[in-house]
């Protein structure tokens, strides 16, 4: 709750002269097609968050306009224009894909509308392209794959075959992976962004005889990929490691085929955090017993941006939005609770990545000199 509220309040506080009697938010996400599993969860998480604050964000009565960007760049751009020029929203929120975010980013920040992203955090807008109107309640795109790369490097795995879809986040994730995995690559393949049939790529993969496969396929792409991987008989031949692919949006559809896979993530439902428990209970109650997933946590208040953020509310406008910086100070400790047959966790976590202390007024800047990737993330294996 506090994340959401705090992030919004900080945003509201840092943008001048706004109508102070009500708040209009424009929510856009992928609500159709294979990736709708992600968008639906983000939307439900958002609605839950609103319900937790009785539809009054920052004390102001809030209306949220929900739109479907159909995973199409041109639709997203048109919706952004409509939100800004016709509906006069105070902030645009939601967003499930990095390429859509990047497409609307210049228009939105130019119009001085706040943009809050729940899922993507493309590295392209970290650093000098960062804007004080942009916030992300998630992570920077390459973090989880950095964790996986570090893990495989440490485990001494050689000859990895990489697969990812060919778009901004896909390339981001692979770059992050390669930043920490220094071994040999058996192949690096980018498939079409909407390609659903991977049979040809799986045949190539088999011929390349790698010792491990790292794949990133969000949403529906992940469902198809993992299922086809298993169907092709590759699962017990070549171990599959993933980031953002097998998670609680895709697990229901993937089913048994996900058993035995390893992935990196920054949240898992077995965390003993009481806010987390309340979130899970409420989410399942409100959305037909669907289990919440990581994207849902991004928009529902469940994590940690509490006092550091509230304190920053008082700072001047040139100070950076707090969302990322304060994450460094809080850590998510996911206890190693094994939950019967569902999931078991191996290690406790801290946040991945670290942001520069000398960051010039921007949340996303990464220091090149002082990045210590602390023990990354939850390694969860589905049993």
């Amino acid at each position: 709750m506090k994340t959401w509220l705090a992030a919004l309040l900080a945003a509201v506080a840092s943008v001048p002269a706004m109508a102070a009697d009500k708040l209009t938010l424009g929510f856009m996400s992928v609500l159709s097609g294979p990736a709708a599993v992600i968008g639906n969860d983000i939307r439900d998480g958002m609605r839950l968050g609103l319900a937790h604050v009785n539809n009054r964000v920052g004390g102001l009565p809030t209306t949220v306009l929900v739109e479907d960007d159909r995973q199409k760049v041109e639709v997203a751009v048109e919706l952004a224009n409509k939100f800004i020029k016709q509906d006069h929203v105070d902030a645009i929120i939601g967003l499930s894909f990095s390429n859509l975010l990047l497409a609307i980013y210049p228009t939105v920040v130019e119009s001085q509308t706040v943009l809050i992203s729940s899922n993507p955090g493309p590295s392209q807008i970290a650093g000098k392209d960062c804007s004080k109107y942009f916030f992300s309640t998630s992570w920077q795109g390459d973090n989880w794959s950095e964790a996986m790369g570090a893990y495989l490097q440490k485990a001494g795995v050689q000859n990895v075959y990489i697969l990812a879809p060919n778009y901004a986040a896909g390339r981001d994730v692979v770059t992050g992976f390669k930043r920490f995995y220094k071994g040999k690559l058996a192949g690096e393949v980018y498939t079409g962004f909407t390609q659903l049939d991977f049979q040809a790529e799986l045949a190539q993969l088999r011929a390349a005889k790698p010792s491990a496969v790292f794949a990133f396929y969000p949403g529906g792409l992940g469902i198809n990929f993992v299922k086809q991987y298993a169907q092709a008989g590759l699962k017990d031949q070549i171990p599959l490691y993933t980031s953002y692919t097998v998670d609680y949006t895709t697990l229901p559809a993937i089913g048994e085929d996900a058993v035995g896979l390893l992935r990196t993530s920054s949240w898992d439902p077995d965390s003993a955090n009481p806010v987390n428990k309340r979130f899970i209970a409420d989410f399942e109650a409100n959305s037909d017993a669907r289990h919440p997933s990581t994207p849902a946590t991004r928009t529902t208040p469940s994590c940690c941006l509490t006092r550091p953020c509230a304190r920053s509310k008082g700072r001047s406008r040139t100070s950076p939005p707090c969302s990322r910086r304060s994450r460094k100070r809080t850590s998510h400790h996911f206890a190693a609770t094994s939950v019967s047959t569902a999931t078991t966790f191996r290690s406790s976590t801290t946040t991945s990545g670290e942001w520069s202390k000398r960051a010039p007024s921007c949340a996303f800047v990464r220091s090149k000199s002082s990045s210590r990737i602390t023990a990354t993330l939850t390694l969860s294996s589905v049993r």
Partner: protein
Amino acid sequence: MTGRAIFWAVVIIILATLPPIASALGQPFYIDLVRRMMILAIAATSLDLILGYGGMVSFGHAAYLALGAYSVGILAFYGVTSGWAQWPAAIGASALAALAIGAVSIRTSGIYFIMITLAFAQMLYYLGISLEVFGGDDGMRLKSRSLFSGLIDLGNAVSFYYLCLALMLAAIYVTYRIVNSRFGMVIRAAKSNEARSRAIGFSPYRYRLTAFVIAGGMCGLAGALNANHTNYITPGLASWVQSGDLMFMVILGGMASTAGPMLGAFALLIAEEILKGWTEHWQVILGPLLVLSVIFFKRGLAGIFRA
């Protein structure tokens, strides 16, 4: 004053006074909306030239829209931001592509012509997706709007609107003059009865190809305008759904009529906007509406106004 003159006078007055009225009402969004309608009206007019008058059912016309947009985008990407260079390049590139595509396609007819024009548009679509440099599937942002050495600022919504209005009227007028010229007569004769026009001594192929090229170029101009309007260029502009939309505009407005394409474009987009306001499932209403309009409403909107 003839009915026709009154019709056009009313249209021009309404469109010309829209920006001040919209600004006064505090709804600048409508300036953008009508501007988009006018840009697509130019594209529809170009399609009417070959479809309505020429009888060539080109299902890949949106390809020229995309080509025009990408010409502007690519030139801007490489630093050429002068509109004086970009827009003629857009028209030229589209015309050239139309020449290439038309040369092959016009040899066929009927269903084959439809399929082959569709296929060529798909080829361009896939080409656009695979060009990583220009963003591939994601498309690219227009680096800067076309600059016309200070004469007109496309960043200003209102001046851009008036430019589009002027260009749309020019396109309609040019098309009107073409179809009523000797050249246009041959095209229309060939559509009406090809055997007879051959018997008189005309070779329809050359005339059709020329019309195809002119239509391609005009659509390229619409593409260049569109790029400046949306500030974002994606390969999706070449998709067959976009081509289908253009064809609907022509039919709805009334084929082979001067004001038809413009009326069709406006009607379709207004219908979309209204329906979108009612329900998110607006296509379930629009689909049957289009079906019924084709079956029952052959003469189109222009038939009502006889324009």
